[in-house]
């Protein structure tokens, strides 16, 4: 028993012109239509939903990501750890290694104030102990206070005046760790995004524009946007395709 073909025989199609073939195909299609095949199909996911789905992408970290930020707003992104101890701060050697081995770095001014270090050194550490500027003695003030001392006979008052006018030379500041060559307790902020951390970039949108949250994830989003603005969808930055898709989506809304 042979099965009856549903469609007309098309074995002679090689002899047809393209237009004849098209008409033949249309006739076949109409036969299927007469048999119940819909002449139109509607996508289950509407175009609007497709667009919005761009907002649903997530960035998942398969390994730790660490970000070092300095007071100039520079940032280094890598995976190394930087040792930190209370009372000492960050281990300088680790900071140096982190910078040297960073996967990405961002120039000064890239990191917004939200993520800058809490404390920044006013001046760089110097080993020049002979510098006269290091000895901060207010001669005029001391002279006035000395006059005051001469007019009083109470030791307590004298002590107070002497303490107030005590010059602040580095030689006298035994508690100052700023110049510790091994550790630094200011000038850097260090952020970590742990392995398997998931970031939904759309969580950092507000009213159709970017509004990174003031946390580690927000810093990552901020740097991602900077990366995207400079490199587009160039692979390398974690989750860049997700960021780009949202940037493109936002572009269609404006």
């Amino acid at each position, binding site marked *: 028993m042979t099965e009856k073909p549903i469609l007309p025989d098309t074995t002679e199609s090689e002899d047809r012109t393209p237009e004849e073939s098209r008409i033949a195909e*249309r006739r076949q*299609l109409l036969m299927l239509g*007469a048999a119940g095949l819909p*002449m139109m199909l*509607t996508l289950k996911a509407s175009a609007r939903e497709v667009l919005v789905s761009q907002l649903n992408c997530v960035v998942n970290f398969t390994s730790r990501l660490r970000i070092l930020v300095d007071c100039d707003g520079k940032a280094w992104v890598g995976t190394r750890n930087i040792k930190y101890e209370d009372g000492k701060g960050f281990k300088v050697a680790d900071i140096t290694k982190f910078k040297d081995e960073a996967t990405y770095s961002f120039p000064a001014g890239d990191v917004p104030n939200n993520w800058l270090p809490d404390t920044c050194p006013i001046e760089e550490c110097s080993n020049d102990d002979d510098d006269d500027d290091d000895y901060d003695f207010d001669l005029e003030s001391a002279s006035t206070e000395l006059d005051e001392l001469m007019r009083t006979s109470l030791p307590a008052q004298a002590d107070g005046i002497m303490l107030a006018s005590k010059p602040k030379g580095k030689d006298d500041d035994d508690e100052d760790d700023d110049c510790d060559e091994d550790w630094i307790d200011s000038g850097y902020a260090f952020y970590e995004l742990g392995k398997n951390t998931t970031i939904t970039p759309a969580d950092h949108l507000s009213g159709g524009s970017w509004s990174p949250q003031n946390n580690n994830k927000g810093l990552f989003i901020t740097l991602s946007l900077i990366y995207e603005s400079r490199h587009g969808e160039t692979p390398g930055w974690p989750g860049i395709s997700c960021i780009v898709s949202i940037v493109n989506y936002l572009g269609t809304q404006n």
Partner: protein
Amino acid sequence: MVAAPSLMEKTWTSDSGQFLAVEYDDTYLVYFKPSGDTHFLNFLSFGIVDAVSKTALSGTELHEKLKTDFSLTSSELPVALVTSTIGELDQAGLISSVDNSK
């Protein structure tokens, strides 16, 4: 009591400004702005939309035009198929009956 006109008796129209269409090998991808839906139309269904977007036509007129435009006979393009396709397009909003607006 007057019977409501059938789909073939109604006059159909379409606003081409409400959709975007791209052809891929005799198939048309149509994005309908008001609904935000995207539809795949074959030559027949798109032929209907295209025809009534230029001139309002009744179902019967449409049937004749389609046969002429696509070099088809009545047996190759049955009225029932045109009727059902008009119904699908109407449901999707891609075409609408002029009679409904009266």
